[in-house]
């Protein structure tokens, strides 16, 4: 137990912040992929919940590694469902997104409660301390004593960035989000690309949920996702649809969440702790309001229903 004046408190906040940034950033990376293809998937919260359950189920069977795989697979399925409904049947994407959120959240809770009356028993990833480096103040606990799974975030962000910039498939994906009519005229199969992007994005969001439960927390609760999906949606805008900016923005919001969590157990911090719970959301809202006018969304985003058919 420590106060605001102590280094240990801030070391803790930063270190926890990075861990909390991972699920958030992964989900945001997934959403970024589908939005760059012009698909606004508002079902992110539900997708993460499904992934979180998949993570627990997989981890209970064969450890957190399988949990991550199952979580990603569940997320991909949710993405596929979204794509079939919104991209192919052209049902309003906002409605489908909310349906997926409420249904996915409910399904995850329902399945967990009915399949796991006893809390599943497995060990999530533990911090790996690099001898020497881990002792460095502030940076040590932040970077050199983390569970290895946190490095998924920068790796995935870099992979997404490279994919979008340096591959033909990435070019097609961006084209579908920025100029679907042109892409179609060039022979790009718009529906297919969007489906693939939504499935891939769903897998990343599911992975984010699984990292949360199977990788870091080790348990599931109804509140485990707790609005992270909606935060991730906002982060995509704050990052201006650029994968490289996802890491710092996720880190900022993760740290704010960590600040609240640590402040709860800290003594004498002199701040109304419950109000701190609102901090990540308020800050995100503020940054979103400032940033949203200086970033450019993919031109076709949010127009699935209105778009002309080929």
């Amino acid at each position, binding site marked *: 137990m420590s106060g605001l004046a102590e280094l240990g408190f801030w070391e803790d906040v930063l270190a926890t912040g990075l861990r909390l940034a991972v699920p958030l950033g992964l989900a945001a990376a997934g959403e970024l992929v589908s939005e760059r293809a012009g698909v606004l998937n508002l079902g992110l919260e539900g997708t993460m919940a499904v992934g979180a359950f998949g993570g627990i189920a997989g981890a209970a069977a064969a450890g957190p590694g399988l949990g991550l795989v199952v979580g990603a697979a569940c997320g991909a399925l949710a993405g596929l469902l979204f794509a079939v409904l919104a991209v192919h049947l052209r049902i309003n994407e906002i409605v489908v997104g909310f349906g997926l959120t409420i249904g996915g959240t409910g399904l995850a809770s329902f399945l967990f409660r009915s399949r796991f009356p006893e809390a599943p028993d497995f060990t999530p990833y533990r911090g790996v301390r690099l001898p020497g480096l881990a002792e460095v103040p502030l940076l040590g606990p932040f970077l050199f004593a983390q569970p290895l799974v946190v490095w998924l975030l920068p790796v995935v962000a870099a992979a997404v960035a490279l994919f979008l*910039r*340096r*591959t*033909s*498939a*990435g*070019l*097609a994906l*961006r*084209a579908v989000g*920025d*100029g679907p*009519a*042109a*892409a*179609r*005229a*060039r*022979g*790009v199969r718009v529906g297919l690309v969007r489906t693939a992007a939504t499935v891939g994005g769903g897998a990343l969001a599911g992975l984010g949920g699984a990292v949360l439960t199977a990788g870091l927390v080790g348990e599931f609760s109804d509140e485990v996702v707790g609005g992270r999906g909606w935060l991730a949606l906002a982060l995509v805008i704050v990052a201006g649809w650029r994968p490289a900016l996802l890491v710092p923005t996720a880190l900022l919001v993760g740290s704010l969440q960590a600040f609240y969590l640590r402040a709860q157990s800290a003594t004498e911090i002199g701040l109304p702790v419950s109000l701190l719970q609102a901090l990540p959301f308020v800050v995100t809202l503020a940054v979103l309001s400032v940033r949203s006018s200086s970033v*450019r969304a993919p*031109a076709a985003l949010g127009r699935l229903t209105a778009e002309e058919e*080929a």
Partner: protein
Amino acid sequence: MTPPGAPLLELAGVDKAFGPVQAVEGVDLDVRAGEIHALIGENGAGKSTLVKMIAGLLRPDRGEIRVDGRAVELTSRRRSAEAGIGVVHQHFSLVPSFTAAENLMLGRPGAGRRLRLRAAAEELRAWGERTGLAVDPDVPVGRLSVGERQRVEVLTALAWGARVLLLDEPTATLSPDEADRLLAVLRTLADGPARGPAGEPAGGPGEGPPPTSPAETPPLGVLLVTHKLREVELAADRVTVLRAGRVTGRHARGDVARQRLVAEMVGEAPAPTPRTGGPAGEVRVALRDAAAGRLRRVSLDVRAGEVLGVAGVAGNGQTDLVGLLAGRTAPESGEVAHPVGGPGSVAYIPEDRARDALAAELPVWVNAVATRTHEIGSWRGLDRDRVAAITRRAIELLGVRPAAPDATAAHLSGGNQQRLVIGRELQLDPGLVVAAEPTRGLDPASARDVVDALGRAAAGGAAVVVVSSDLDELLLIADRLVVLFEGRIVADLPRAAATRDAVAAAMVGHRDDDGDRTPDLPAAVGAAP
């Protein structure tokens, strides 16, 4: 290798129907290496259906498409590209946020997994040098001019290995000058090594050099789809005329008179007769040094009873002028006065009717009363008789079919949606009509109806402004023509002085040398009867 003169692309007995409408029927057409083959016809003649079939976007119901004498199934855009057909579309084939290099690689057959943009940029530069169509490969094409974007399209088609270049209305958005330049480039592309540099000028002043290494560019076949006779006369080696989905004429260069082509294009349908305008009355809208967007210090009066045509290459301030005249936007400086009635009595027919003037998901009757919601009832409810009367007039003015007020507007065909919008606007007995591209996208019969309706509105005492990119339409309907160039009015011509040449010259910024008509012009208007 195809010997020179052999057909590269052939269409044999091609049919295509959409529901009950036979869009294309029994069309034969061939394009040979080394020639420019023009395909002409009015809007709705079936040209774009043919284009889509050749591009692999539509499949014929019957008939065959052959490349190098072999029948091919063009099931997709990609197949068509692989068969050596390069398509330069009228719209929509470049992603504006992408650079030319990125656009080159988008959907390119056999591009590989890795995206090699630097190589693509080099390739574009090389092709640019060969053809004289230089573009900057690393700038988002959205920032390029219309003409430059078209170059990107042509270069892309060439780099993809096109042997037949299909251009769909390529000059629609170009200035007459740019259009001539493009035709010259097409000539050299078609000629290739066989004939060497062409006789026509290969580019205007300041243009890149003509192809330096023609040996590297084998002769292409060019299929030029257009509705402009002038281009046919200037550039085509052969011409095929299409009317109502059938071929109505085939001619070689120079063996046919313009009147004959016109007759083959329009058939027996009565050509609309030029209006005989009455005397202009009071001023219905006046601009004084008004500026907005691209429009710079424009002064203009439009009077009751006259049809004012606004000509100009797209993007020279037309949109802003329409906004000001219709009272939709406020001027950034200067004044706009609507002396009679105010903006409320303005009929406004925007360019993109479906986007700006129609609520497709709402019933027809709601669309019909959409601009008059303040006069059809109170908080107690709607005045149903009035709603019914307004709806009836809007539907009947141009004959919307089906005349079902309760169906959603999305049920109507595109043409009928336009009729509904125009009917709604004109049934107001407006003091001022502002119409942007009023016949675009309409079949010839509807277009004639709309032109007639605008004429009737003027005869009924309205001031009518028609902004159109179709110069021939303007010459037909307008009592007076102004030309916009770079946001200014550079010519204001009464009907008698508005010859095609005079207007075309003004469209690229040539002012009249006579000196007795100044471009900015309340005075000149005052002088006109």
